[in-house]
């Protein structure tokens, strides 16, 4: 589904060259729920941005369904994002001038095609994320948990193959975080969509099938819940 080969990314800061990713290799299968963890500055968010085509690598390849992302033009990358990738952001990134249903429907309308099923799709997903009755509201009037549900619905409305989530529960309390993670887990199972989630939260990472641990721009280790000493290893790594 996704394969990352020898991915390098550096930034120039004055005369200084800052290496963020130093040759990452990774493979994610269809329907896999991956959590990426690591200390601040380890490169996990940069990896997510490159997987989503929000940025281009300095070298190396990101292939989605065999198609090299880095070889695409800006417009082609946008179209891939529009069709195959869904985003969930820590701070929800909802558009304040649009209503809840308009925010959710955005990816469907962005390609300019008018599909008579669009409305039905929106109604269905609103039901699935539990936002009935809030369709016409402005996102500013919703709670943090509700806003993140809108964001999830928006990320999933166009049925992308990959859902990229950057700290989706970072701004929420434990109860709301749990609700959101349950939702993600439900969709992952129902729709067989790959989810790649960057998080600092061990509890959130516990929902993933596999946890990728990042350190100094490289993958330190990949662990699964089934691995021996999984919880202890995570605690010591993050400490």
């Amino acid at each position, binding site marked *: 589904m996704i394969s990352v080969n020898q991915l390098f990314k550096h930034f120039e800061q004055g005369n200084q060259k800052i290496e963020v990713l130093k040759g990452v290799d990774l493979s994610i299968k269809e329907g896999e729920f991956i959590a990426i963890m690591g200390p601040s500055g380890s490169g996990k968010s940069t990896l997510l*941005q490159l997987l*989503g085509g*929000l*940025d281009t690598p300095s070298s190396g390849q990101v292939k989605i369904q065999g198609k090299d992302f880095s070889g695409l033009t*800006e*417009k082609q990358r*946008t*179209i891939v*994002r*529009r069709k195959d990738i*869904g*985003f969930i*952001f820590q*701070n929800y*990134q*909802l*558009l*304040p*001038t*649009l209503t809840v249903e*308009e925010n959710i429907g*955005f*990816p469907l*309308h*962005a*390609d*300019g095609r008018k599909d008579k099923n669009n409305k039905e799709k929106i109604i269905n997903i609103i039901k699935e994320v539990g936002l009935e009755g809030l369709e016409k509201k402005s996102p500013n009037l919703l709670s943090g948990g509700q806003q993140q549900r809108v964001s999830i619905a*928006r*990320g999933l409305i*166009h049925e992308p193959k990959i859902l990229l989530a950057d700290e989706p529960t970072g701004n929420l309390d434990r109860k709301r975080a749990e609700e959101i993670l349950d939702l993600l887990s439900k969709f992952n199972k129902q729709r067989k969509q790959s989810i790649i989630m960057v998080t600092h939260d061990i509890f959130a990472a516990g929902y993933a099938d596999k946890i990728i641990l990042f350190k100094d721009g490289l993958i330190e280790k990949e662990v699964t819940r089934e691995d021996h000493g999984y919880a202890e290893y995570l605690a010591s790594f993050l400490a």
Partner: protein
Amino acid sequence: MLNIWLVSWRNLTKNKRRFFFTLIAVILGILLTTSMLVANNTVKDTFRYYEEIYAGDADYWILSKNYSFSEDEVEEIKQQSIVSDSLSVLDKQTLVEIDQPEAPAETSVRVTGVSDLESNLLKLPLTKGSLKGNGLIIPENAAKLWDKDIGDTVTFKGLGEIEVTGIVGFTSWLASPNNWEDAEGRSFRVMMDLATLQDWTNRDNQISYIRLQHKDRDNENWLSNYQELLQGTPLYVQPVVIDDLRNNDVEGLYSVFYLVSILSLFISGFIIFNMIYSSVIERKKEFSIMKSLGYTNFNVFKLVFIEVFLLSLLGTAIALPIGVLFADLFVEMLLGIFQDTMVYTLNWKSATILSGLIGLLFPIIISGIPMYIAFKTPIIYAMRNSNKNSRFRVRILRYLLGITFILLSFVDNYLGYIFLLFGVVLIYPAVIKALAKVLAALIEKILGYPGRLSVSNIKVNTNRNANTSAMLAISIAVVIFLGSALESIPSGFEKEIRQTFGGDIQVQFEEPVNEETINKINSYTEVESVEWFRETMVTWKTIENEFKEFYLMSTPSKNTEEYQLFEGQDNVTSNSILLGERAFDEWGGEVNDSITINTPSGTREYQVSGKVNTSQDGGYVGFISENEFKESFNWNDINTIMISVSDSGNPYELREKLNSDFATYISTITLVEDQIESSQSSFDGMNEVMQFLLIIVIALSSIGISNTLLMNTMERIGEIGTIRAIGFTTKQVRTMIIGEGLIVGIAGIIMGVLLGIFVIYLNSISNASAMHMPFIIPWSNIVLAITAGIFLSLIASIIPSYIAAKINLLSALKEN
């Protein structure tokens, strides 16, 4: 130590593009104001200069009720010790032979003989050759059309041949046609030595008038002394008066100068307000932190004040010199409208100082509210929530006030327009929201889904978008209103000219007309009938005791509708006078008040019995009864006749016939069509100038659109990042921003057109202007305004749209 000036400068220029656009707005506002003020002063000065050189240093002139008189009759006056200089003048109408393909076989010319060509009482603006010697002085217009230069000779029919020794620029003394078509209606004027002309015409010692310069120039008693001295003789005296209103009928243009200045300052002010307001709102948290660290309210106020001051200082410093240069080009273009080639000296000093002061103070005044907001920002701002209920109440209050102001615009007064302006600005946020809703379907149809987002985005920063659109609307309304004025005024003038021209052709003779001449003209088959009136130039005093001069005319002896010279009053009784509109306004009194006039029979008081509409001398004229001329002034000569052309007669052929039969007597022949065409061409010229100015004002409004879109874009970087991340291409982002610009622009155009038509309607029902401005919708100006509005809105959106599309996706996402 913290350098507050440096901190302010950094704050001001932090957002470089916004700073640049605002600076451009300040520059354009002050530039236009400087140009208009400099142009205003320069044009006024130019007209006054030409009046002054016509007046020379003369104080009085003595004329005769007869065509000419012997210089001996004024010898005693000339020899008085109080008289420091004098100039004797004789006019003679004649024909000149010009060997030019376009020229008629014989061309009519008025030769003026003067006793001293170099006299200070004459002040000829020599451009080539010399005033010394006994040669001929010709104006540049004649030199060009006749193809004559210094040293060439000119032959006057039946008089003699003379060498050209001097060429002069424009002066009223020698005002001449500047093309051959114009020469059909008026004669050329040239000047030469008096003695030669007297010799040529066998009028030894005869003169038409004499000008005198006094040593004691401020003593007005000499007027009554002369009047007393000349009583019982055909001679009479007039003081020499500088009154540029007689030749300068462009007050309307000055109003346009002021209007453009005010409008450009107004628009520029809104742009500055938007920028400073946004900057202050963005930095409220910063201010509260500063205050928590020890800054006083005044310190914060000072910080913002210095930012505005630096902006205005920089903008003004750049705008002033460019404004003066622009004024130079503009005055040249403006004076090009007039038939005579006038030279001018740019009067820039006082206007530049004034606009410099405006440039420094205006942005500070306009930024008063944002500065106050900065001053009042509470320390705990970050923790405070806004009170939405109070905002809602303020909004309702604003709209109610706006509607009240709009209703008050029906007040038949200039205040009505000010109420309307404020009313429109106050209700505009509601208008733009409503229009965005109405336009939503159309915009989405044209621009697709990005267009739909544009409509939603207008709701963010509604006030800023509304202000920007309101500026465009007001500019467009002014374009439309002036278009209507310029369309209706000439048609009103044409009607007025036809009704008050007095016949179909007016002929002015150089010498008094005798019965034989009238009979001969009456016998032409083209002539239906001939009528006449008497006229003389007189000086008079305004209510403020200022000397002015105009033509005093008699009512025609047969005051029928065909020959009427004015309308609005049936007739004029003895001892009373009717004043043309411009003369009445300049005089400053009320109907039935008295006006003092220095008539050919001394100073007299007349009761002003009314203000009348007339096309004679552009309304700068007075009418008294024919009886008054004959009995009180003892004025029997007739110099102007009015001809009614028969149905089968051709006025142009009749003009040719008159020109050929009375070539040496006729000074001017004016057809009613000439008069209409002349007025029309002046208005056309002014219309072009105004359209040029108003397109600049619309362009300034579109810089406002650019600035607003740029601010909107910068404030929504995070959102733009999001939509890019979830599927919008850069093209779609560009389309969205262009859509926002289009909504602001189209709303401005729709409101501007409605507002413009409403103002035209208000004018058409106003007591003051209904007569000259009927309800005429200027379709061509509406098309111009719509085209310019849409085009400039699109242009204005391009830069912000590219900036929005080019933003870095990752940094934009971090903004949220």
